[in-house]
């Protein structure tokens, strides 16, 4: 059941590189990451790739397969025709370290800036009560495995390096949405969203949602609701008029 493929894999570092072709045999059921491992074990022992769980749960093996941002461990080889040439390149938005590994520290830096959870006081009996109906919505956001494919595909930073300081990216918005919609949180992050996280840069072209391996509805359930909350605070003409009139 094995079939041969040509894998065009990017080899290089920050100073540049090139695609190199490897002929590999793929057994039934293999995923792209298996094939990369086969190349490592037999043809290029120093081929750099980042991976951990190989089960779509840790979000380490992000790459672009035939130009599409995907997890290598969740892309089965039977998606492709035998004999086909498959291009594997590193995610583009972050500086390359080596081969398929990029420096994703941008995302960790952004995470540091997000205002933390601030819970309201406990119930009179000393417990915390939250209901499944309220928690459901936020649990969707907690599914995020931080593969950063949404950050990779987002044209705001992918194609515009200069926006990086101003824009926190879809992953951060998912996190911010989870905090803003937490049933017991009482921090207001709307000013942060508008001014620091650059929510306005998002033009809701939905690529983040398209590539999310966890199927999180990033645009519809996180970003747009956040935009609406910002509208509540800043773009409501009635509120604006009242503030003008009362001289606030």
């Amino acid at each position, binding site marked *: 059941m094995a079939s041969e493929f040509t894998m065009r894999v990017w080899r290089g570092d920050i100073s540049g590189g090139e695609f190199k072709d490897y002929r590999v045999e793929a*057994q039934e059921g293999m995923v792209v990451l298996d094939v990369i491992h086969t190349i490592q074990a037999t043809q290029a022992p120093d081929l750099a790739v980042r991976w951990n769980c*190989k089960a*779509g749960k840790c979000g380490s093996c992000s790459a672009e397969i035939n130009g599409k941002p995907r997890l290598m461990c969740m892309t089965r080889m039977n998606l492709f025709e035998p004999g086909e040439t498959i291009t594997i390149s590193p995610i583009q938005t972050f500086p390359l*370290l080596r081969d398929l590994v990029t420096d994703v520290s941008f995302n*960790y830096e952004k995470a540091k800036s997000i205002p933390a959870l601030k819970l309201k006081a406990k119930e009179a009996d000393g417990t915390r009560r939250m209901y499944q109906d309220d928690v459901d919505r936020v649990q969707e956001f907690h599914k995020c495995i931080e593969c950063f494919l949404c950050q990779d595909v987002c044209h705001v930073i992918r194609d515009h390096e200069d926006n990086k300081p101003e824009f926190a990216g879809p992953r951060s918005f998912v996190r911010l949405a989870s905090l803003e919609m937490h049933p017991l949180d009482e921090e207001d992050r709307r000013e942060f969203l508008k001014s620091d996280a650059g929510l306005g840069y998002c033009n809701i072209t939905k690529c983040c949602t398209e590539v999310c391996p966890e199927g999180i509805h990033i645009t519809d359930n996180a970003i747009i609701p956040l935009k609406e909350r910002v509208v509540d605070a800043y773009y409501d003409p009635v509120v604006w008029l009242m503030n003008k009139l009362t001289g606030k």
Partner: protein
Amino acid sequence: MANDKYETHEYDVIVIGAGGAGLRAAIEASAAGVKTALICKSLLGKAHTVMAEGGIAAALRNVYQEDNWKVHFRDTMRGGKMLNNWRMAQLHAQEAPDRVLELEEWGALFDRTKDGRILQRDFGGHRYARLAHVGDRTGLEMIRTLQQHAVHKGIDVYMECNIQRLLKDGDRVCGAFGYWRESGKFVTFKSKAIVLATGGVGKAWKFTSNSWEYTGDGTTLAADVGADLIDMEMIQFHPTGMVWPNSVRGILVTEGVRGDGGTLRNSEGERFMFNYITDYFRAETAETEEEADAWYEDKTNNRRTPDLLPRDEVARAINAEVKAGRGSPHGGVLLDIASRRSAEYIARRLPSMHHQFKELADVDITKEPMEVGPTCHYIMGGVRVEADTAATTVPGLYAAGEVAAGLHGANRLGGNSLSDLLVFGRRAGLYAAQYAQNLEGHPSPDADQIEQYAQELLAPFNNDGGENPYTVHMALQDCMQNLVGIIRTESELKKAQTEIASLKERLAKVTVEGHRQYNPGWNLALDLQSLLTTAEATTMGALERKESRGGHTREDHPGPDPDKYGKINLVLRRKDGELSLSEEPLPEMPDDLKELFEESK
């Protein structure tokens, strides 16, 4: 020192490993006011804790009022076949509820009961529904919560940094030495105290649920500086790993499938677990399918389904069914929830299992059974620690989580791992911080020693032996899988010892291509040292323990030996470079706790 040759950082406490235990330790140490750093091999938040699915065991009593720490303690000890360190099991059962509630304070959102409290689910070996959970991705929730809390507390995190040696000043530790994966450059951490939280050893086996990181680093680092290891022969094979396709063989299928109503069947459709109820668990296990099915709804009047016997029992049963020719097409058994629960329920309770099987095996678990078989999952043994403080036998060195031993005895119950990480992660961080606070002066590693280590680590580049590290690794995995697997026997274990010795020689000849920057070949060559050390330790223990107990089954000694091996830990210690083994009595349980076991018989 200004004239350090390599990049150097100085801390009061460094924590090696950033899974649940490491993160919890770092949070506690930092909160105690000492300068703390967290060092991890991967990116932050990718550690194996993320793979934990089922839940966190804690007697919160949200679902069953009858539950309490004593019941949890008893379940843990009995599940561990009484080889556990009783004091650890007691602390664990007592403190787990607080640790879970603390996670909620930090932002974790567990599934809820109707009255708005944390919902708890059934799991193997737990008398009551006890596991706080989030669908089947509890580990992700836990690691993300801890990660974000640690980030907001401003703890320094060093990612993709691989610690290879611990440094000593006299008989106590004073730092760690390793390299950045990104650049391959060396780095020294000077530190008054060190917490090891490096996880397990699963990558020594071929079929494992563990990721590449689980190479026994902490166990080896500790042994190399003279710390005791115990129970290294106790390896848990999780009964349900994926068996097909081959490339995903070993990936975990959560026990939650059975906790939520799934059942194991052989190729004849028989629920074979009813044939494998041992006397030890007979009194508390259902005898008929009717009783087993009724138990899910009513635990007071029915006994637990044998599908949820402790993992060692289920793994052996599956192994026996397959050997008897009643296995599934790809050499496992069938795990069926599709015919027992609605598609909607399955998708809600087990979303990531649903996704995993659909994507990786083209199987829709709401319609078809899964094929599952045992997979190397966890090591109960590891670094010996003092129960209350998580201190190892080396001053300044602490250990928590899977790398530490004692809590789980001969077999770990599902759900007890995440609570272990929280309870003992916190304790390790707390006592490491206290130790550091009481220590005067600065840690001062020996520069010559560091230089020697640096040369050792670079050896694979200068070697012309021509061995490929990947080939050596695969040979080790075959050896451990075939000779030190679920069922062991003296002749095979001896053969394994010979093979491991020859693999050590081959490792000395490993040659690495390319340069130091993000070079997986070199990284593996270095990890192989710890893999081989732990493989050797496990095999030594397995050969010595001439009985069957929990995660250690000897074909040539099929029953337990309560009079000898039931009373001792096998302790491994490095002496003059070689591991040596000794027997030491288990800590004696006080009488008031002993009573808990007598009344139940």
